[in-house]
């Protein structure tokens, strides 16, 4: 049961793994070059989702610096925390300053305090790592993404209050913006190549391409696979 909960709490990773495997399978199993490109895209997108999910904090906001707001909050100090048992929020506000420089560490610390968990920073294996804390918060009942979306009473209030000071870790998102650009460029180059292949060979099916190359090189198809008649020339 615990294992199941453990698995479900990390649903973002399951999405990532499923998509990644689907993408890889399409790349390997499909003979049509366009389908290969799509598979490659699915594969890359899965990595985008992985990166985005490790930086996401439920209720966290975009990391935008608001000087006056920050000053006001600094003046209020710990009193600002509106909910009992969540004094950590005040501490979080003070730490915002750091967050501008060290997104990663900040996100982790705050999350842990927000979740009301006394997880020690150097705690058990995998998910006590700073970014792993994203999972802690996903697991904490009042703060799941669904609750936030559903605007469920106190949870929504807390999320709102938290949103004022809790930032999603921007670094993975920025990194993946770069990777998305790279992915688009790769897709564009790939599709351009496919167009050229189609012009040169008259087909974009891998089997037929191989057969056409074999005919051009040897005059026959060494690997007989019951292919349709080939267009050897182009």
């Amino acid at each position, binding site marked *: 049961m615990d294992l199941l909960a453990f698995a479900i709490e990390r649903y973002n990773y399951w999405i990532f793994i499923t998509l*990644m495997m689907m993408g*890889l399978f399409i*790349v390997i199993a499909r003979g049509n*070059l366009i389908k*290969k490109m799509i598979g*490659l895209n699915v*594969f*890359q997108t899965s*990595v985008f989702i*992985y*990166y985005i999910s*490790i930086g996401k904090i439920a209720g966290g906001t975009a990391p935008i610096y608001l000087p006056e707001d920050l000053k006001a909050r600094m003046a209020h100090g710990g009193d600002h925390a509106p909910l009992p048992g969540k004094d950590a929020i005040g501490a979080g506000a003070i730490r915002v300053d750091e967050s501008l*420089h*060290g997104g*990663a*560490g900040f996100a*982790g610390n705050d999350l842990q305090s927000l979740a009301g968990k006394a997880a020690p920073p150097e705690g058990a*294996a*995998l998910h006590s*790592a*700073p*970014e*792993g804390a994203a999972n802690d918060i996903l697991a904490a009942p009042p703060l799941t993404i669904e609750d936030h979306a559903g605007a469920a009473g106190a949870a929504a209030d807390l999320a709102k209050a938290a949103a004022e000071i809790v930032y999603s870790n921007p*670094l*993975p998102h920025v*990194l993946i913006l*770069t*990777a998305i650009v*790279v992915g688009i*460029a*790769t897709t564009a*180059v*790939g599709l351009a*190549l*496919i167009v*050229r*292949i189609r012009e*040169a*060979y008259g087909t974009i099916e891998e089997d037929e*391409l191989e057969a056409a*190359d074999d005919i051009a090189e040897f005059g026959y198809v060494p690997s007989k696979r019951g292919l349709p008649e080939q267009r050897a020339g*182009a």
Partner: protein
Amino acid sequence: MTQFLAQLPVLPIIIPLIAAPLTMLLPARALKGRIPCLFATLVSWIAFAASAAILHSVATAGPISYHMGDFAPPIGIEYRIDLANALVLTLVSGVAALAFPFSYASIRAEIDDHQLSMFYAMALIAMVGLLGVVITGDAFNVFVFVEISSLSTYALVALGARRDRRALTASFNYLVMGTIGATFFVIGLGLLYQATGTLNMADLKIQLAGRDNPMVEAGFAFILVGMGLKAAMFPMHLWMPNAYAHAPSAVAVFLAATSTKVAVYVIIRFTYTVIGADFDFAGAAFEYLIAPLAVMGMFFASIVAIFQDNLKRMLAYSSVGQIGYMLLGISFGTEQGLAASLVHLFNHGLMKGALFMAAAAVAFRVGSETCDGFRGLARRMPWTAAAFIIAALSLVGVPGTIGFISKWQLLSAAFDSGRAWAGFLIVASSLLSVIYMGRVVELMTLAPAPDASAAVREAPLSMLVPMAILVAANIYFGLSTELTVDLAERAATSLMGAAR
């Protein structure tokens, strides 16, 4: 002047990066397309001069840490240059500085005139990407530069389509495999980032200390597989022979001498600087996975090379085998093995560059890329043939050439670390390279020239001079090992020291 020198580490990147789009604007048809070629050559020479200056500075004054935009390292992007990257940096920019002037005659014959400016722009970008991978100390930056170089490489390979449409499918396969490799690398980086919250290599090393958990192991595995794909590590080499065989000859010269070596460098960097010796799994991965694969690659690829008719494809398969030597050297896990690996990385770049240049010169004059084109070549193109023979001897490992130095280093590393079997396997697979190189040398020297021989002249000077310089380097570094071996040993010491 000091102000200028302070910016030295970024020059090999920033100058070609700015020059590349400018190259695209240069007229391709005026003066027989010489303008973009000369401009790109000039830029590559500047990059080489900067790299050599960096190497000199690192060798005398120790590692350089350059902060991009003056943001301090763990947050900002750092260019961290120690001897290992300085050596590879010099190799890449040096080969580029020779490949650009060399490419002029060859590429004009193989692509359309109006593509010349584009070609040189892309070649510069490919060079920037490779230099960037080597120079950077930021893990994600490595991915960005890998993709910069890969994307332009896909286009460069596809340019071979005018001669042979198979360049298109080869390029497409390279794109698919290369993207999978790069994406694996990013997944690995993501896992390491999730474990540590940092992307700076030196900082990663500090943060990872004592965190031997499955996440880090998985991250390392992803990085190893991703870069193994890029490095054409056996059995992930399938994209390479076709890509090199069908790419324009000048492109093959540059890629064969640099791109896979850079990927091997990244493997070294991540194994020693990022993961370090604390982690048993890295050692285990090398002992039980990389070493057997390296040996299989050495033999399998060499045997396949023997049966290749297309010379460039044969050389590509030979590269797969040579990558095996480098990985075998790393897998010893000793300082000596690492030094041997670095020496071979450097030396192999020089000899494969020279061999591919000779192949390109033959393709340019004879118009054939098959071994048949080499028939009686010694009489028709004596200089090219001589260059090919010296480089081939170097590949085999004859004393007096760089091949001997790297084989010697590898052998002594193998025996000193108690791996006599590896030593014997290295020698045995070298014998295979005698067979495939000897076959071509025999055709060149002993076989009679075909009838059309009268029409074939020696390659133009623009090809001969860079080829001669590379061949001279093959001999020079084979006799004077100060630069390569000493630097590689010091680099290995510092890498191993950092790993501990």
